[in-house]
């Protein structure tokens, strides 16, 4: 445990407590962001469907940020869990046919999350065996196997035609998914918010700090008594579960699942979002998702067929010139405003 190192002296214990309390403190921009996000549903109800996509994307990016930004596992196949979650939720909602427990959206989220956590836990052992390059290929390989499975098991998944007849029930048995997507957005945003709070707690817990230690130097982290592989297994499992919930949200709010959820571009996009927003910042995932979606809409409207080119160009420029992503810039600005020095 990391605690043993910090608990060496009695004074150290209270200092450690103070440290964790300080880390976990909420700051005013965070409140502003969340209040603003909820207000959007009422300020611009006509754009709710777009906001809903942003919220789902943000949750997906958050899940990769845990895996990549905190555990330092480079994954090119995170879309596997997104897709799995989407199919699990879609199939559940289809089985429930609009009523009963199976069609209950929150139940769907829970089951999708658990299913992905289980698969994530199992595959985490494969992923952790190698170094960066091997991890890249194993994650990509696992994602491709999933995509092939979904494609071949057409009797279950609908194959290339997509999964028809997904009928999610009312949220908590009260709110129906409306045509304009406002309830869908609020539902996705609430899920994102709750899971974000959990992620924030996890990241600021001794577990989260130990992940940072491992990312900094796995060898030394092991030397101070952190069980490196078990921590990484845990982080990967949490990330997988989060991605599964994001996929489930997409399946429920769009009432459709297609092979696209397992496509490679999902994994690449979400990686771009995390990098763009800033790796290992949590909020970077949300900011990055919003920026990505806006950018996508802009580019797709300007050059429908070739938006990928600009996306690629942004990626290249980002790597060459911007360190720490948008959150790096924002964090620096925030520190300057509040007169604090050091890194955000």
């Amino acid at each position, binding site marked *: 445990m990391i605690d043993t190192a910090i608990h060496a002296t009695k004074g150290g214990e209270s200092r450690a407590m103070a440290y964790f309390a300080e880390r976990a403190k909420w700051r005013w921009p965070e409140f502003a962001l969340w209040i603003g996000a909820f207000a959007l549903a009422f300020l611009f109800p006509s754009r709710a469907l777009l906001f809903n996509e942003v919220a789902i994307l943000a949750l997906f990016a958050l899940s990769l940020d845990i895996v990549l930004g905190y555990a330092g596992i480079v994954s090119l196949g995170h879309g596997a869990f997104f897709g799995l979650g989407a199919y699990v939720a879609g199939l559940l909602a289809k089985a429930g046919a609009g009523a009963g427990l199976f069609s209950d959206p929150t139940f769907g989220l829970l089951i999708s999350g658990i299913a992905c956590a289980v698969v994530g836990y199992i595959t985490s052992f494969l992923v952790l065996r190698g170094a960066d390059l*091997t991890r890249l*290929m194993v994650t990509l390989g*696992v994602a491709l196997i999933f995509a092939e499975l979904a494609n071949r098991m057409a009797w279950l998944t609908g194959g290339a035609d997509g999964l028809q007849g997904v009928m999610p029930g009312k949220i908590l048995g009260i709110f129906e998914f409306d045509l304009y997507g406002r309830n869908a957005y609020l539902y996705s945003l609430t899920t994102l918010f709750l899971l974000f709070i959990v992620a924030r707690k996890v990241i600021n817990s001794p577990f989260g700090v130990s992940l940072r230690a491992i990312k900094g130097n796995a060898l030394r982290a092991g030397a101070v008594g952190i069980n490196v592989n078990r921590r990484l297994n845990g982080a990967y499992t949490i990330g997988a579960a989060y991605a599964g919930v994001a996929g489930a949200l997409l399946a429920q709010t769009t009432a459709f699942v297609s092979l696209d959820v397992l496509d490679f571009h999902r994994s690449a996009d979400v990686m771009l979002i995390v990098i763009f927003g800033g790796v290992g910042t949590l909020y970077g995932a949300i900011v990055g998702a919003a920026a990505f979606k806006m950018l996508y809409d802009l580019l797709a409207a300007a050059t429908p067929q070739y938006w990928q080119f600009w*996306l*690629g160009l942004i990626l*290249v420029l980002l*790597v060459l010139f911007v360190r720490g992503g948008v959150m790096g810039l924002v964090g620096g600005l925030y520190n300057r405003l509040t007169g604090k020095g050091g890194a955000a």
Partner: protein
Amino acid sequence: MLTVLFDGLAYGMLLFVLAVGLSVTLGLMNFINLAHGAFAMAGGYIAVVMMQRFGLSLFWGLPVAFLVTAAAGAFLERTLYVRLYDKPHLEQVMFTIGLVFMSVAGVDYFMGASPQIVNVPDALDGNIDIGDVSLNKYRLFVIAFCAILTIALQLGLSKTRFGSRLRAAVDDARVARGLGINVTTIFALTFAFGSGLAGLGGALGSAIFSLDPQFPLKFMIYFLVVIAVGGTTTITGPFFASILLGVADVAGKYYTPNIGGHKIQIGGFVIYTIMVLVLIFRPQGLFGRAQGK
């Protein structure tokens, strides 16, 4: 059965020419270049343009594809890639995926999204009958061409001065530098040569696999499988891995076992599963040597 082996062999040989450059540069600089397929695609399209717009035969397309992509590789290496060698793998991945996206959209813009149809030269059209087996002439040419190329590569690597410097640099770049070997130059040359080979492979293969703008994304996984299975320390490893992959891929498309009343194509599964298994049990590759680091 023989036809499957034959087609698989041709396909595997092609894969080797396409991927060998990536394998060597990866072993040399530990640089993850996911954009390798973009060079192959460039070579393919160069050949296509030469044939369709200028009416030249594929035989002219091959050397031009090699030279142009090699020059492009050298240029990009010196201007862009060189900045990323000491960056984390993640940034290398993002950077090269960015390049892939740009190349995909760029080719789409100039050449259109539909697959290109390539006519093989008249001399190589049709089949040759040997006994009761009929062999496609073009595939035979591909096999012979790639075999000669492979032998030349292997000889160049083991017999020439440049080859031994390259091997030294792959084994341990720091020590090689200490011995006065200019690893940077070697890497730039190898990168250019590897890109050129990819371009050559793209041109050669344009008549066998369909060439469309999605090529770099589609083949990225094949390249990674070749490297995962073959390792990055030799070129014989990737060679056998390519042949294995080629035969497995073609066989997977031919045989569709009946499982539970559903015809199932096993191709994709077999390949990805092999890759994951190899990575787990032999992270240095099936044919690679374990590295001392």
